[in-house]
């Protein structure tokens, strides 16, 4: 399911008396839960869990199984929020070497051109640079996780 469709479902749950909604299509499920006190979660955000189809277990993105995605629906569509997507298929590394310090951490302010991570493809280490300066809001991939083309790696807020 695409973010747009998930957003529509969130709006539906939000604006109605539905407390829990589960939709499945093509073997993929989305379940949206609302705390009936009117507040979804203590921090005011809806949590969406995208679960893969039940047995036979099909992992659509090896090796991870479930991927929590936080919805930004409550905040206005912010032009200052930039998503850095992977330009290639490979393995994502947070640091230049296994025992080295990660390139960046959440909350860190970075400058344009600064190296954010490495994507290893075919034994070659490719440094991924920031397209803009800003503050790291979120890091979406785990160290040593396989990533695909266009997969969102970082959310950066321009400062």
């Amino acid at each position, binding site marked *: 399911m695409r973010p747009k469709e998930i957003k529509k479902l969130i709006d539906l749950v939000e604006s109605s008396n539905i407390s829990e909604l589960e939709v499945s299509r*093509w073997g993929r499920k989305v379940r949206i839960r609302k705390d009936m006190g009117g507040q979804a979660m203590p921090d005011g955000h809806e949590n969406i869990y995208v679960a893969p189809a039940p047995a036979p277990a099909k992992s659509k993105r090896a090796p991870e199984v479930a991927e929590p995605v936080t919805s930004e629906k409550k905040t206005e569509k912010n032009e200052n929020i930039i998503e850095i997507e992977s330009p290639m298929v490979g393995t994502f590394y947070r640091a230049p070497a296994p025992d080295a310090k990660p390139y960046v951490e959440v909350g860190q302010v970075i400058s344009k051109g600064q190296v954010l991570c490495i994507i290893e493809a*075919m034994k070659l280490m490719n440094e991924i640079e920031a397209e803009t300066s800003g503050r790291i809001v979120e890091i979406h991939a785990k160290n040593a996780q396989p990533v695909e*083309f266009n997969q969102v790696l970082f959310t950066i807020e321009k400062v």
Partner: protein
Amino acid sequence: MFKKILIANRGEIALRIIRACKELGIKTVAVYSTADQESLHVRFADEVVCIGPGPSAQSYLNIPSLISAAEVTNSEAIHPGYGFLAENAHFAEVCESCGIQFIGPSHDMIANMGDKAFAKAKMKEAGIQTIPGSDGILKDINQAHKLAKDIGFPVILKATAGGGGRGMRIVRSSEQLENAFTTARSEAEAAFNNPGLYMEKYFEEPRHIEVQILGDDHGNITAYGERECSIQRKHQKLIEESPSPAIDDELRQKLMDAAIKGAKMVNYKSAGTIEFLLDKDGKFYFMEMNTRIQVEHPVTEMVIGIDLVKEQIRLAAGEKLLFTSPLKLRGHAIECRINAEDPDKGFRPNPGDISYFHVPGGPGVRVDTHAYALYKIPPFYDSLLAKIITHGKNREEALVRMMRGLEEFFIEGIKTTIPFHQKILQDKDFQAGNFNTKFIERFMDVK
């Protein structure tokens, strides 16, 4: 046997390979461009990896992306399908050097058979008749005259650097030769910056006959009957069938023997197809060899009863050929390639949204397609939408089933070539099996 295979392709052939893998208990990895997110092969694979944006050069032809995808998913083998990188020797070599089994022949074999001069020389060595012609570029008009006399008119002059019909001249007598030679040279120079010409015997109304072969790692090679592929428009096949209505048992035996001899001469492994030209007098000439699984492989599967893609995978895993002695062809099969093109507007490609999609069924009807209702056809790739294959106890039954199948095949929201195929099937000459590679040209002139 492999535990996991990555399919380096898209569309109907990707789905075809996934199906074979499922039956063999092999896990599948589908790769897709951002334009193919909703594609069927992505739905049915066990794992999926997005490898790039829509344009093929950045996705399905992107070797680093494909190899990287195979590595992050721990795929043991890559099946290249047809088109894209299926006959790219460099890609096969990269796979080999990265420890990934390429499902097809070795990179040397691909490079060799892709070299027309090499392939021709090898076939000659095997004692197979090749298309008579010049050994390379014609030096001058005198050589042209001599050669034309040896080959026998009509001959065709072709630009060595060219294609698309430019720098080509058909010459029917020695009087025409000088003028044709000069004008073809100037045209070639203008179009390709290279005036070099070669000469070949010209066949007026040949039939395109190809033979399916399979070779294993133990030196066994077998031929699985012939396919008739003369119904072509601008050198693109539209309708294929097996067996060919133009071939009797005696000629079939000669073709099989020649194909096997040729394949043995190059020590061929995996699935491949040897293409021949059949002239009006029943003589055949080697044209070229394709070192991949072909679009029309289902017609052979229907008359032989063997899953060729499963065979290809088993052979790549080092297993022996299922059958080393020739098999009898059972009944008759026909395939129509349905394209998302508008036959009334010069076959203009028709990407767009399919609003309604109903696939025919019933006895002897098979449909291989990656399309479905509400599918949005991306504009970046070829227009092949579906293959409908029918099988019957004889050609008449296969034909009647194809007519029924096309009648039941509803695709709405876009234009397809289904109506065009229906018209061809009504043609008396086609029904009589009386046609050659000029058929579509004549058929469209008359319309």
